[in-house]
């Protein structure tokens, strides 16, 4: 099979994943190969973030990371937030000086990225003053700026419209050889990715090529979505959604 020839990046063999003693994903078995474009699906609380966090931990320096709820610093300018993707590559002194006066090279590179992401002209604006979609793009810009071969995104296109989501995903694909992206848009998962991992209640119930799956099969991942299209309790979900500068809340029930 062609998958076997590609380099194996990480493999889980019946491993328990979780936070400390709390197991979120018991006896997980899966493998990620170079070149894979994986959509990670599942309800909130199914264990997507836990899996992505573990992948990040194991793959270390190869990973460009785009966390859930962005993890941006609202008080700093767009430029500085994007620059943070490469903090370790500069000396401490250069990093400090950059806050006083932007370094010329990084400024040019970040400007090019911002142009590509439709953030041109916003580089000096504090992130706290941006709209939800703009913040999302800043978070993606920061991940792209890391220039790593592998992209891990925890719902990186959750708060942009479908057209923009496609554009952003193409941009991510163009700049990374491998990607694992947690999503809620099932259609996107089938059309834009070549592999789907589906989590339900802490178990990997789907691990298949995207072109072998149907929307109905993906619906099985969302037991609550039977009647209404999306979240059953939009009010509760909106209330529980932390703001950009709130702590990411602990995952739901294991």
């Amino acid at each position, binding site marked *: 099979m062609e998958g076997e020839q590609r380099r194996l990046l990480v493999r889980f063999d019946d491993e328990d994943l979780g936070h400390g003693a709390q197991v979120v994903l018991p006896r997980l078995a899966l493998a990620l190969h170079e070149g894979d474009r994986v959509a990670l699906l599942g309800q909130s609380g199914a264990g997507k973030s836990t899996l992505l966090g573990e992948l990040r931990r194991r793959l270390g320096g190869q990973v460009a990371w785009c966390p859930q709820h962005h993890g*941006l610093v609202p*008080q700093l300018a767009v430029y500085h937030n994007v620059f943070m993707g490469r903090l370790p590559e500069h000396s401490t002194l250069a990093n400090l000086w950059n806050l006083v006066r932007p370094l010329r090279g990084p400024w040019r590179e970040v400007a090019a990225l911002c142009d590509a992401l439709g953030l041109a002209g916003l580089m000096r604006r504090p992130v706290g003053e941006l709209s939800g979609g703009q913040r999302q793009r800043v978070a993606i810009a920061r991940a792209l700026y890391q220039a790593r071969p592998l992209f891990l995104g925890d719902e990186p296109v959750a708060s942009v419209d479908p057209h923009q989501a496609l554009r952003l995903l193409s941009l991510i694909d163009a700049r990374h050889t491998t990607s694992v992206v947690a999503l809620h848009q099932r259609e996107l998962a089938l059309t834009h990715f070549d592999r789907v991992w589906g989590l339900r209640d802490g178990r990997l119930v789907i691990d298949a090529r995207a072109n072998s799956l149907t929307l109905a099969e993906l619906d099985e991942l969302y037991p609550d979505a039977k009647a209404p299209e999306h979240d059953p309790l939009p009010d509760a979900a909106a209330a529980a959604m932390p703001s950009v500068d709130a*702590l*990411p809340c602990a995952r739901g029930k294991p």
Partner: protein
Amino acid sequence: MNGGLTKEPAPSASAWWRGGSPGLRLARHSLGLLALAILLVPFADLAIHTRDPWGELARMASGMAWPAWGALESPFAALGLTVAVALWGTLAGVVLGFPLALLFARSRLVRAGCAFVRAIHELFWALLFLQVFGLSALTALAALAIPYAGIFAKVYAEILEQTPSAPRDALPSGSGRLARFVYAELPLAWSQLAAYTRYRFECGLRASVLLGFVGLPTLGFHLETAFREGRYPEAGALLWLFYLLIASLPWWGHKRLIPLLLVGGAWLLGPWPRVDGALLWRFVSEDIWPAALLTGDWAGLLEWLARIPELGPAIGNTLLLGLLGTVGALAVALVLWPLASRHFGNRASRLAGHGVLIFLRSTPELMLAFIFLLLLGPSLLPAWLALALHNGALIAFLVARHADAITPGMPGLPASSRLAYELLPRVYPGLLALLYYRAEVILRETAILGMLGVATLGFYIEEGFDYLMFDVAFFLLLITAVLNIAVDALSRRLRPREAPLDDPCIR
């Protein structure tokens, strides 16, 4: 049992009081505190020692009403020094406290050290430094900077700890510790750190005024002299000057003006003492310790301890006054907060209520106590009044602000029901939580009021310094600090958990 809508007998009064709802728990709690205070009142000396308090009050009031602006000698020098000391003292506190804040969570030693320096009032620090640096700018600055360093370390550490961790976690691995701090922690905490520093500067301004009471030539020095000598019109003018200074702070204390004030203030600070290293070392290593302790003579130490005058009564008075002050503040707050709330009265009554609250909370306790002392003579009464009024007004102001944010669910209730059913149940946990925060401050103030002649620990500390019994004074200072730390721990335990107070600027 088949529950449901069958008749349930009305609970008897005693059964009702044993109920477990948070409101009842807080009510039992407050009544317990009140009962304890009433039980202990007979032990407090609340006598009025002056012959004509009302006449004296009338003379003071007329002094306030017709201040003698012309009689002031160099008021601007005193004002300038007051501001300069507050500004540079606070800045030095920040410089010392900020690095400590970074170590605060990790080092038990730092936490203990900060708790200790915080527990001693600015004026006691001033008394201590007065012995080595004399009446100099260094004494004034150190008196503010050292306790503030401890406070800044604690509060900054709490603020930094509460910054969200998501930006930190999003950084690529290998980002340096310092880079992580300045990019993903400091910007998130900055506005809160700045707000707290500003608040502390306002406290520093009041403390700087009070340094005049130990002889440093700030505004308080002129105030005390004028009051003591009965020159009330002059004292009135100085008091108005003080209120103007506090009220105009938003204008002259604008953040763009701060560098200018710092440079200007540096010129006004002085005189600078000639620091004698040998003398300083002797003070630290010998003078403040009992001789018996240094020679290891344990029997002699016991004898020394027994000779300390009135140790038991002084501690008892301090704790008693602290308790009475706390309960008094509770009563004052309960009475005063509706006066300033939008839910009660009319425009005129609210304006008057606000005026009373601003007057009471911006006058430092020591100054209030000093004025009451002139009126009533040296008993616990003036100190009690001052503590209750100042802290009660401060709490009432915050509670009124809290209540104003509440929209009653049942419009059109009469005022008494609105208070009892709609508002008080909602604001009371917060009120009590504030009171417990203040309890520690009240005890610290209680000790300091001794310097005015009230028989608390401060009285004997000042006496010790006056008679050059540094060992006794220092020992009493340590006792004060220990009492403070103990009361702080106790009030932290008793504080209602229903109302967490996140804003450090209200403590």
